[in-house]
């Protein structure tokens, strides 16, 4: 990449991570990684479970204590108060109140972020929970619960959405619908970082970040991954990439 291309890339990056090092429970999860995530697109953060995806997302969300390194989000250090209304973060486990209804949960979080009441009905429709609005969250299925949790993050139309495994436990129809929603959000200018351990979801992403044991195994478009590995199937491509890395030492 020449100098100008690098500068263009840097200026359009929503997230810039430099030398990020994170230790959790005495174990080095991220040994010092650097990456850029482009604005206004869907970036897939893929990798086997335990590869450090959640830790990286937590660091970008500003909730992770880090050992070293710099994480800049939308031009500000991760976790700065000004970012709290610009970044939406959805944890892997649904973090909403199980004893309230879907509508009550969104009503509460909506008042915290300060959105108009009409927006609540809008996000409920976006995640396809229109029929469950008055149902207590504790009685919903796992997939419905995680969609309710996702709806909360959509409330204030954040510029950056960090989604940790949002499609786990969803049936193929819903999964496709959610990826459609993500694409629409990106088209409207939102930056999305979506983690998944299911490789076939990589095809929905504009760009991919493959994490393995806390290091970046691949950073580029799905097309580039196919070309580089000579494999049409993204799961096979990822496996080939790892084999090569291991063979190369």
């Amino acid at each position, binding site marked *: 990449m020449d100098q100008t291309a690098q500068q263009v890339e840097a200026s359009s990056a929503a997230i810039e991570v430099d030398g990020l090092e994170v230790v959790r429970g005495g174990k080095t999860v991220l040994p010092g990684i650097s990456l850029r995530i482009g604005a206004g697109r869907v970036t897939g953060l893929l990798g086997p479970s335990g590869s450090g995806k959640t830790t990286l997302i937590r660091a970008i969300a500003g909730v992770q204590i880090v050992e070293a390194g710099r994480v800049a989000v939308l031009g500000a250090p991760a976790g700065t108060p000004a970012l*709290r209304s610009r970044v939406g973060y959805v944890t892997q486990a*649904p973090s909403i109140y*199980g*004893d309230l209804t879907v509508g009550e949960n969104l009503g509460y*979080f909506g*008042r915290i*972020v*300060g959105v108009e009441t009409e927006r609540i009905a809008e996000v409920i429709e976006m995640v396809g929970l229109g029929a469950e609005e008055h149902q*207590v969250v504790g009685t919903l299925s796992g997939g419905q619960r995680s969609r309710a949790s996702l709806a909360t993050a959509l409330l204030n139309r954040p510029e950056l959405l960090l989604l940790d495994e949002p499609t786990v436990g969803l049936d193929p129809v819903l999964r496709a619908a959610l990826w459609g929603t993500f694409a629409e959000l990106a088209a409207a200018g939102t930056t999305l970082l979506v983690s998944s351990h299911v490789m076939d979801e990589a095809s929905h992403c504009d760009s991919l970040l493959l994490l393995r044991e806390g290091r970046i195994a691949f950073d580029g478009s799905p097309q580039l991954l196919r070309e580089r590995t000579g494999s049409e199937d993204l799961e096979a491509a990822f496996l080939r990439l790892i084999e090569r890395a291991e063979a190369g030492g």
Partner: protein
Amino acid sequence: MSARATGATAARVIRQLRRDPRTIALVIVVPLMLIALFKWVFDGQPQTFDRIGGPLVGIFPLITMFLVTSITMLRERVTGTLERLMTMPLSKLDLLAGYGIAFAAVAAVQGAIVAGVSFLLLGLDVAGSELAVVALAVLNAVLGMALGLLASAFARTEFQAVQFMPAFIFPQLLLCGLFVPRAQMAPALEALSWALPMTYAYDALERVTVNGELGSRGIVDVIVVIAAALLSLTLAALTLRRRTP
């Protein structure tokens, strides 16, 4: 700090409690049952019932709110809703004040019902104003809530949180002077009792129920209780971390 976020949090906490009618029933019925027990256990000595029963009406909300708050806050920590709130434009004070308002409202209802039944049906007799007893009950509930919020930071599971009740509350109940005058305790325990907030909560109640009025010492008691609640809330705010390991 924002009135909107504080109000929303208070309304949300009350709504959650309302979803759990059994807990509400327990919050009201258990103190009534214990006070009725006291009445008939001391059937032969009604003056003992009056001496213990009056302050007890004002101390119960402290105990209940300690327990209810520490469990509710622990749930926020365990289910990830606290972490979500910490990533949102919500100040820690909004969250704690929201809790404070919600549980003070619950305590006011609890105090009014328990006091009403005790004074009107069980024939409990106090020297001072019954309203002052209810007002002190609400103040003590806020103290109990503040202590509960702080305690929840040190519990990882609900089992642990429940054990904090005998660990934090029972010694204070024994040392506050309710059962035995503090002057009759071992000197070391009497000295220790000066450091415990419930001692002041009880002292104020005793002044109202026995002497008939708070007096200047009673006002000092009230100030100490308010200060203890504020200190506890401040320490609780420090345990709410936006970043975790």
